[in-house]
């Protein structure tokens, strides 16, 4: 029994660690950005990371309004002046606020947006752990040595499940 509980504890601790790591680790989706001739593709590479400052939830690269077309031209202008991606994004943030970024900056109050989901998942794992604390040792019959042939076992189980649908 103690051994089983230890196994459960270990499994949940492992799950908790993996869960937090998966949430916090930022996959390397970042694209290569090289300043140079401001082609449409270079403009869009930055514009797609910014949101239209006046529309609701529309990335700047696909926003069809005239205002957004002008903002894309502004990005082109800044690129031609030698600004890099970070500087341009910072410029837009200063002009229009943090809402132009596709994700909130990880600072101040905004930290909560990243922390709360991880905390929620940890709480879920803890609740699952509590549910498994009452784990009861199974009957000996299904331990390895007594296992029937896989197909026979499968047929019996299938029949049982089909009966009790």
């Amino acid at each position, binding site marked *: 029994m103690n051994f089983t509980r230890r196994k459960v504890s270990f499994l949940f601790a492992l799950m908790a660690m993996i869960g937090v790591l998966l949430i916090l680790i930022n996959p390397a989706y970042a694209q290569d950005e090289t300043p140079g001739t401001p082609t449409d593709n270079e403009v869009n590479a930055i514009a797609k990371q910014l949101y239209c400052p006046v529309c609701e939830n529309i990335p700047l690269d*696909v926003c069809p309004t005239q205002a957004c077309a002008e903002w894309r031209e502004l990005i082109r202008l800044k690129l031609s002046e030698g600004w890099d991606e970070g500087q341009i994004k910072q410029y837009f943030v200063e002009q229009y606020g943090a809402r132009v970024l596709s994700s909130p900056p990880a600072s101040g109050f905004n930290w909560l947006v990243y922390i709360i989901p991880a905390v929620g998942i940890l709480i879920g794992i803890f609740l699952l752990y509590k549910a498994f604390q*009452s784990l009861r040792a199974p009957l000996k019959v299904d331990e390895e040595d007594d296992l029937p042939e896989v197909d026979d076992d499968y*047929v019996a189980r299938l029949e049982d499940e089909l009966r009790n649908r």
Partner: protein
Amino acid sequence: MIIDLGYGALVIAFLVSLYGIFAAIYGEWKKKAAWVESARLAMLLTFPLITISAASLIYALANGHYELEYVASVTSNSMPLYLKVTALWGGQAGSLVFWSWLLSLFTTAVTLRKWDRDREFLPWVIVVSLVTLTFFLILVIFVENPFARLWQLPSGQVVETMVAPAGAQVFLRADGRGLNPLLRHPGMVIHPPMLYLGFVAFVVPFAFAIAALVTNRADDRWIRITRRWTLVAWLFLSLGLVLGGRWAYDVLGWGGYWGWDPVEIAAFMPWLTGTAFLHSVMIQEKRGMMKHWNMVLIILTYSLVIFGTFLTRSGVLSSVHSFAQSAIGPLFFAFIAITFIVSLSLLISRWDSLKSKGQMTSLLSREALFMYNNLLFMGILVVCFWGVIFPLISELVTGQKITVGPPFYERATAPQFAGLLLLMGVAPLAAWRHSTFKTLGRAAWKPTLVSLLVPVIVIIGGLRQPAAILGFWLAAFVVCVTLYEFWRGAMARHRRAGESLPVALWRLAGRNRRRYGGYIIHLGVVLMAIGIIGIEVFQSETQGTLAQGESLTIQGYTVTFESLNVFDTSEGRNVARAVVNVEKDGRNLGELYPRRDYYYEAQQPMTIPGVRSTMEDDLYVLLVDWEPISTQGATFKIYHNPLVNWLWLGGIVFILGTLVAAWPNKDKEAVRSRVSRPRYAATKA
């Protein structure tokens, strides 16, 4: 006249609903079956009444009754009839009428079932259904009335009321403003009804759950009664989501199908809890466990259904301040809060009686794996919920608006979706009650071995992205396990009963449609996952301004600008239509016609892509801009979307699987087993 009839029918439906609630509670309190029966008939009556109301509104929409503000805001003379009819759900007030009509349709269908053996549930199912319906009728009658007319006062001022102000005359317009151009798409004709059907159908299992709590029935009867209702709700919600994705792909002109927009997420959240519920109820049915959790899930699903409607209707998404100014926002908020608190209080009051005797006996049993599955669904829900409401909280606390966009959701949910795929592969191999690594390994090694061929092949083929390789392996693993399950079951029947393999397969699936329908759903999910991996990992794009005869290239395709025409149409559109020629590896593939429509009435542009679609990829060409006078030059944006059509194919398989799972079984006795005789029926007798 017809307008007054429509409004009058709504008011009567509201009064009938109130009476039904009262009669059901009184009948149950005094144990007078006649009152409960009267409440049942009242609930039945709501459907024809709201049908009259909806039909009146459709008549007004189709016949250009522009004296109604709602009609003027969503229709115009130039719109075709089918769009005028579907404008019923094109605006807020009409969509609330439509919501109410669908809800009355479902509650009527519930009312018509045989109640002999579950009579004790009836009054409470009526109460919950009618309380929900009454809330929506209150919104329609008192706050967002689609039948309100425009009146011109003697001073010249135009006001919108139901009753004529003193000395006022009906304000007649020659034409309306027309439907939002984005909604003038066949996908939008079907998408909202499917979504609404999914939403309202979840009211039924919730009503039975509350009835079970009130009557203190701790068995799984409510789950068995509502099993098919839940599947139907889930089917429509899934269909609504898939159609919404297709609409976005065809109409929104950004090369994708899902943008993690709050409105999309609002519909996705009840789907998440509904899916978790569909898995979790199996644990209660098989093992008598998870009774509390199933109640929590159905309460959450109901609350999220209302919350989803609230999010999209209250104005809260644009700003917390517009929520405060919105007439229906605070009412929605209060309704969600009250129903959630009452439901949870009821659950807590029945906590002890819902305690199960069953215990977990293995970390790898089917029920344990379903619990991990539930954990992941809840994890994704937390991410979605928090991502949607955090901008509102941030605006309230800091006064600053922020955006929580796709990078946040993708980063936080991708590992959890991968975990769900893994569980989808492992769970069918696990036995109920007890599984060990050894028994699972014995069952899993063959499909695992076969599935490993896929990553080997894609790596040899040059694929290097770890996320894509993992995703393709998981997809292959689920497919192999699912097909292996079909194979093993059919072979077992073939050996035992001597049936031919196709017959064995058919009869096997027929004996438990939920199980094998579920496996087909899993196959659909895998196909969708392949499409999602394709577009998320391998999508590429390019943009450029071309003179006639010039080309852009992307992933082996050459797109050449040939011509551009700009013209007006009879229904009030200005259309700029480009002709581009597509070649691949020197082979001519034909022409595409990307265009930009500008709707004069709505003053809104709409970008319609030209798409060349195959199972391998989509070439998605957008007309971004053009030289207005000469039309000799134009700017195009081109997306290359690999495998995206697997997503739509998966959607179809997914829906087919749900239909199989929801199809009624011939053998009803099996479903009715393990049912105790209800006490209310005895009282009535």
